Each structure stands twice: as structure tokens, then as C-alpha cells.
């Protein structure tokens, strides 16, 4: 019986020999209305725009103006600052749990910017950058993480499982995969209603093994739903490497082929490439040419969550050795090369955002943290189970309040 060996081993050294990235600018960009089969060769390539010097090369260069890029850079840096702040908040016992997206900020931020602000997002717990790029208040994010009296979700949900109808961001589930086919259903409803909004869904490479992934592809193909389906391949699923999900046998983008869906495989740490690929898929969907499966090839630089220590299952130097670099550094370098950014401005912005996050955190903690301070009243435990509270819950609420 063949069992995919666990590698690279914690003791040893990083080994990315399994990767075969195409050079920047090499992959051609098809028209958005090509038959999906024309995109299938791209399943084994990697769309890359930024080269190692930070130059933008080739047909996929989205040619974005500096202001837009600086905005993207800022959102990525803000996401990172927010992540490190909340990670430490959990470490210091202010909440139960946290998950960072460090190293994957380009995925969420560039994708949010390439989509329209009212396109519906069905994300996983590692795309907080989507909300941040859309301008969702950091304060509200923090209050959700603290489950405090200002938590928009009333202290009900595990930290990071955000929800915001106002920002067209569907409530996150703790169950992996479930939201990808829901995104397809939402897109079907949009098409049914003659709406121009599309849906976008995200799933980790590990979770592609769940039934929901299969259902999402099947329904997206059969009903030609206007949806962008994203597989974030960050190489790891907690402690198991992408090969446990079948990554050694074929790319995740290639899963589209068997359903006749379009596919793209993109350097997830290349802001320009991610933006361009997402824009391509979104335009294609909006023009009713069908769904695209986008594999975002990236790397989970941090731990899976605050509950695990990655050095127990991968080499210490693995994050440093990741061949595709860091999305923030790469975009900054590109802007600097264009004379639109500088080391100093970068440092200054870093400081500014760290300060902003620190201040906001102080604000947030005024509403309490998981351990201390205000809470939502006991009623909120029983509300929203149904639209109207049935007798059994009314009774149980009385019991919880110590009333006869």
C-alpha cells in the first residue's frame, strides 16, 4: 500500500524540488471568451507577472496604476499587522483561538480588488484580507475575535468566522468546503434573477477532498454558473502536505478539466498575477462564459492556527526557503522599481499600521475580551435559532435566567 511519505521532515531542510514554476511573463493570456478547453494547458503552468527583480512582464500584467497598487500594498500590510496583533492577543489569553493569513495576503487582497465590491464572497477562515480590502472596520473584526459586547455576531462564533451582509461577505462556516457549492448556488440565483453580480468561493487545497468541492464543480459546470472557484494551495493542511490531498498526482487546477470548466493556476504571492487571473475569471463569469477554477499557488508561512506548532511537522527554515517569496515584499519592490514607493515610505507605513492596529485594539478591548468585561446577555444564546423563538427555547431561556 502506497502512503505518501511525510516530507519535508522537521529535523531536515526545506525541499521544494517538487515545484516547477514557469518564469514570469511566459504564460500567454487567452481571451475571456475562449472555450474552456483552451485554458486546460494552463493547469500545469503558473501565471506569473512579477520577476525576481520585481519587474512586471508579459500578457498577464494588469497594468494597474500606482495608486491602486499602493492601496493593495496597504491592505496587505494592514492584514498582516492585524494578524500579528490578534495572534498575540490569543497568546496572551485574550481569546480562545486565532488564524493568520501571513504569506497569503495577495490572495485575499488582490482578489477582493479584482472583484466588484458587491460580488458575493464565500470565503474560508484564511481570507480576512477580503474584508480588509473592502474597508470592513478592523474594530469589528477584533470585536468578533474577542467575542465581546460589540461583536457583530454576538459572541456566538469561533474567532475569525466573520460574517457581513453589508460587505457581501457570507457567514463563514467552521466546516470545511461547505461554502464552495453554496457560492455556486448563489451564482445560480443571480443568473436566475438576471443580476450582474457574480459569486466567488474559496477552499483550501486540503479541503478539495471534501464532497462539497465535487458538488461545486459539478453544479458550476452543468448550470454554467457565474462564479469564480478558488483553490488556495498553501502547501499545507494543518500538518499534512498537499500531496496527501493528491497534489503529487496532478495540480488542483487540473480538477477543472474533467468538468469542462476553465482553469488557471497562478503564483499566489504575485499580487499582479493574482489580480489579473481573478479579473480574467470574473470578467468571464460576468460575461456568462461560465465558471473558472483558479488554483492560487502560495505558502502558509505561519502555523495553521494558534493550536499548533509547525516546527513539529516541517523544517524550521521551510517558510524562508519558499521559492515564490513574500507577497508584500514583492509588490513593494515592484513599486519601488517604478519609482512609486520607497523603503522609507514602506517603513513609515508599517509603523503607522502597527500603531493603527494597536489603537484599534485598545478600542476593541473596551468592549471586553473573551475572558473579561462585557458580554452579550443570555437572551442572545436563544435568539436567531429560528426567526421566532419556539416554546421550548422560551422555556429554556427562563431556566437559564433562573426563572421558574
Amino acid at each position, binding site marked *: 500500500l502506497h502512503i505518501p511519505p511525510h516530507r519535508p521532515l522537521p529535523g531536515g531542510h526545506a525541499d521544494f524540488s517538487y515545484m516547477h514554476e514557469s518564469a514570469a511573463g511566459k504564460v500567454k493570456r487567452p481571451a475571456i471568451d475562449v472555450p474552456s478547453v483552451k485554458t486546460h494547458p494552463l493547469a500545469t503552468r503558473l501565471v506569473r507577472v512579477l520577476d525576481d527583480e520585481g519587474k512586471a512582464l508579459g500578457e498577464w500584467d494588469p497594468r494597474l496604476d500606482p495608486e491602486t497598487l499602493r492601496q493593495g500594498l496597504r491592505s496587505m500590510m494592514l492584514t498582516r499587522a492585524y494578524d500579528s496583533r490578534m495572534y498575540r492577543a490569543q497568546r496572551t489569553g485574550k481569546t480562545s483561538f486565532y488564524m493568520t493569513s501571513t504569506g497569503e495576503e495577495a490572495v485575499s487582497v488582490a482578489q477582493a480588488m479584482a472583484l466588484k465590491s458587491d460580488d*458575493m464572497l*464565500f470565503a474560508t477562515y484564511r481570507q480576512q484580507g477580503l474584508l480588509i480590502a473592502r474597508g470592513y472596520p478592523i474594530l469589528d473584526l477584533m470585536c468578533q475575535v474577542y467575542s465581546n459586547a460589540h461583536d*457583530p*455576531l*454576538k459572541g*456566538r*462564533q469561533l474567532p475569525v*468566522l466573520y*460574517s*457581513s*451582509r453589508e460587505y457581501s461577505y*457570507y*457567514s463563514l*462556516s467552521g*466546516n470545511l468546503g*461547505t461554502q464552495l*457549492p*453554496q*457560492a*455556486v*448556488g*448563489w*451564482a*445560480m*440565483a*443571480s443568473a*436566475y*434573477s438576471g443580476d450582474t453580480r457574480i*459569486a466567488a468561493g474559496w477552499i483550501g487545497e486540503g479541503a478539495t477532498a471534501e*464532497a*462539497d468541492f*465535487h*458538488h*461545486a464543480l*459539478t*453544479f458550476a459546470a*452543468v448550470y454554467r454558473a457565474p462564479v469564480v472557484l478558488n483553490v488556495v494551495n498553501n502547501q499545507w493542511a494543518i500538518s499534512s502536505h498537499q500531496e496527501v490531498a493528491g497534489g503529487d498526482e496532478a495540480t488542483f487546477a487540473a480538477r477543472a478539466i474533467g468538468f469542462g470548466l476553465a482553469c488557471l493556476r497562478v503564483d499566489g504571492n504575485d499580487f499582479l498575477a493574482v489580480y489579473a487571473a481573478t479579473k480574467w475569471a470574473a470578467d468571464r463569469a460576468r460575461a456568462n462564459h461560465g465558471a473558472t477554477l483558479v488554483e492560487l499557488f502560495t505558502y502558509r508561512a505561519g502555523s495553521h492556527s494558534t493550536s499548533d506548532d509547525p516546527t513539529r511537522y516541517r523544517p524550521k527554515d521551510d517558510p524562508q526557503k519558499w521559492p515564490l517569496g513574500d507577497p508584500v515584499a514583492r509588490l513593494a519592490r515592484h513599486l519601488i522599481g517604478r519609482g512609486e514607493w520607497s523603503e522609507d515610505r514602506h517603513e513609515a507605513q508599517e509603523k503607522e499600521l502597527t500603531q493603527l492596529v494597536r489603537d484599534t485594539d485598545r478600542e476593541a478591548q473596551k468592549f471586553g475580551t473573551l475572558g473579561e468585561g462585557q458580554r452579550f446577555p443570555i437572551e442572545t444564546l436563544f*435568539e*436567531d*435559532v*429560528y*426567526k421566532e423563538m*419556539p*416554546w*421550548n427555547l422560551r422555556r429554556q431561556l427562563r431556566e437559564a435566567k433562573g426563572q421558574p
Partner: protein
Amino acid sequence: MSTMSMVQALNSAIDVMLARDPKVLIFGEDVGFYGGVFRVTEGLQKKFGERRVFDTPIAEGGMLAAAVGMGAYGLRPIVEIQFADYIYPATDQLISEAARIRYRSAGEFAAPITVRAPCGGGIFGGQTHSQSVEAIFTHVCGLKTVMPSNPYDAKGLLISAIEDDDPVVFFEPKRLYNGPFDGHPDRPARPWSAHPQAEVPEDYYTVPLGRAAVVRPGSAVTVLAYGTMVHVALAAAEEAGADAEVIDLRTLLPLDLETIVASVKKTGRCVIAHEATRTCGFGAELSALVQEECFYHLEAPIERVTGFDTPYPHALEWAYFPGPQRVAAGIRRVLQA
């Protein structure tokens, strides 16, 4: 008013709602062009078009997921699960998603969906075409569970389910499609046309969720039943010659506890009948509630007459089915206790 069978009444409910509300659509395996294996959607695709009544790939989990997404958009999808026995692949989307979305999003999103599923025996379908799985869903907060016993209620309850803003699992007893309803295979089956509850208005009306119906008044013993077992209970009451009050629960969740308690406090005796397997069936909850609410009024142990704790057999379908004899025996035991 016209006489409708169970299938016609269900078809009429969907027809009425498709006509009233453009946000309503229905899909499932073979429901489109063919009209469903039990013909419940017959003629509806022709009338309302492929976009509103259509076939899906064979993936119950995918159907539910699509419905949840459509619900988030604002539509009111109706999903047909071809047989309740095939609802298991959809349990994750139903329990982890549909039932939880309102709560976890603090009311920002909801899942106003209706899941229809034919259940129970009646077609010699063996263990994968005969199950009664309601108790799996009555344990799930956030879901509502309905099982009608006649055409009038079926249409009124299905319309209420479609209009409800929470997810409703709507079970349709297959035996009530064809009969015999009373569980007497040996006797000629009485057609719906011979039943008063087959008198159904053509247009819109509702039967509210959460309300039971006393279908036979009595003072000696209360019999709680739903779906096919309502007819069996009525037959059993006659055969036991008992002054039994038979209550058709109609909605299991939320349960109409008041009606039940009022009856049992009056009669002091209670028999619970369902076709599902006994252990942890819905009858267990009914028994626990009645005991908690009516303890000091009970003059005899509460009896459960149910399907056996085995898979639904093929050849011995009628030996498995908790028919009038078994229910009547239960009534007698309770009366003699």
C-alpha cells in the same frame, strides 16, 4: 374545491406558490421534464419553464448546498429528495449549514428552504426506499420538521413551509400516495376520493406549522400519531373499541405541546405510534415530554408502538409495519393497566 389525492395536493401547493412568488423554484432528481418519480411535479416544468422546475445531477448534498446559496441570495428553493433514504448525503449541508446560518450570522443570513422527501414504507422498496428518518432532524435545532397525513393538510402545510423563513424538512409518507392508509393490506384500500380531507381548494391557503389536530375526540386514552400512522391509529381505535382521542401532530418541530398535554391530562393514558425504528425515535421525545408534563395525571405507563429496531425488510414489509393490530394491542394494554 375538488377532490385531490396526496400527490395532486402537493402538486397543487407547488403550482400555487410558483405562480404567486417568482422567488420560488423547485429542483431535484427527475423533477423537471419527467415530473418526479412520484409525479408530484408533473406538468410544472411545462407550465413554469425550465428555469423554475428542473432536474439536478444526482447529488443530494449538492442540491442542498445550492439551495442554501440560493436562500442566501433571497430565493425560496424547494428541493426534492427522491427518497428520504437518500437524504444522508445532504445531512452536512442541512445540519451544519441550513440549520445554523441564521444563528451564526446573527440573523444576517437565512435559509428559507423547503426539503421535500417521500418517507416510510408502502412500495415494498426494502431498506433503502422505506425509511422514516424524521428523528434525526427533530434533534437538530434550527430545523422545522413536518409530516402531513392527508391531502388538505399536505397542501396547506407545504405552502406554510415554503413561506417559512427557516429551513423546513417536509416528509411525505409514501403509503399515503397509494394506500392502504389504515394498514390493512388484506382489505380493499379506501381511495382518497372517499376521504373528507381530500376536499382541497384549488388556490392558496395555509395550514399553520406547529399546530396539531385532534382527528378523533375521546376521553379514555390519547393516541399520538403523524403521517400514515394517523390512519392506522384511527383504525386501531375502532378495532379496540376504545374511546380514544387521536391527535395528528402534523408538525413535529416545533411541536404543539399544548394540545397534547390538554388531551393526556384529560384521558390520563397515552399511546404513541410511529413507523420509524423505536430506539431514539420521535416517540421517545413525545413520551419524555408527556411524562414530564402530565406525570400526576398518568394512570398507566405511556406505550410506544413503533417500527422494530431493524432495517426495513422487503418480503416481510407488513410484518414490520406497526399496523392496527399492534396499535390496538397497545391501546388495550394502556387501558387495562
